[in-house]
């Protein structure tokens, strides 16, 4: 096969506009969530196992490292959720133009950052 064929989108050389940045972060947050699921399911298991398990989980969540990990998972979830809702909005036909995409990307990013901060406040 000819290895010098032109590449449609060479990620190593293109400059990232805001739409591309929110997109790549959507993907990264999704992969982070696949790992974070282990923590969330474990939390569900422990919290529902018994009264002692529930209290044990509450105790664990008092520690700073546990709070940081939970915040990271919740931040990824908040970001992924907001960007997912942006996609669903576009699927309904809103903001499909280049300018519309840039505007919704900016708005979604601001909302996501606010929710990520609120998630931190909630955990602490």
């Amino acid at each position: 096969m000819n290895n010098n064929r032109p590449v449609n989108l060479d990620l190593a050389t293109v400059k990232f506009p805001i739409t591309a940045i929110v997109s790549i972060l959507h993907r990264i947050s999704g992969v982070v969530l696949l790992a974070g699921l282990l923590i969330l399911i474990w939390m569900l298991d422990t919290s529902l196992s018994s009264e002692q398990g529930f209290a044990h989980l509450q105790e664990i969540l008092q520690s700073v490292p546990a709070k940081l990990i939970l915040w990271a998972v919740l931040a990824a979830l908040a970001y992924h959720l907001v960007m997912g809702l942006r996609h669903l909005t576009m699927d309904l036909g809103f903001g499909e133009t280049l300018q519309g995409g840039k505007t919704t990307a900016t708005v979604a990013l601001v909302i996501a950052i606010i929710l990520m901060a609120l998630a931190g406040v909630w955990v602490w």
Partner: protein
Amino acid sequence: MVTAVTTIGRSGLSDWLIQRATAVVLAAYTIFIVVFLLQHPDLTYQQWSALYDQLWMRIFSLLVLISLAAHGWIGLWAVLMDYVTTRMMGGKAFFLRMTALTIYAVVTLAYLVWGIEILWG
């Protein structure tokens, strides 16, 4: 027509729809849980287990686990197909993608069984 064998729905359009439908389920569950926790700032074990004792909540949760399996597969598949490519990684790209998808399949099946165990165990 070339049919991709590692896609969930065997077609891009089908995957697109599954990705959206499962996204709606996952978003609804996330918002529901967050609202429930905000409504119960001093949540007790009794309140929490009472929620998960209800059949509709168990079914909702199971639906979420199944949605997660499909949603995660489609997402991971797209990420792998875009970045773990022969152009970027050479001949081992195919092997790496298959390994990653296989690990995901095993892990997500474990999540599913574990989830059922939590909900009905």
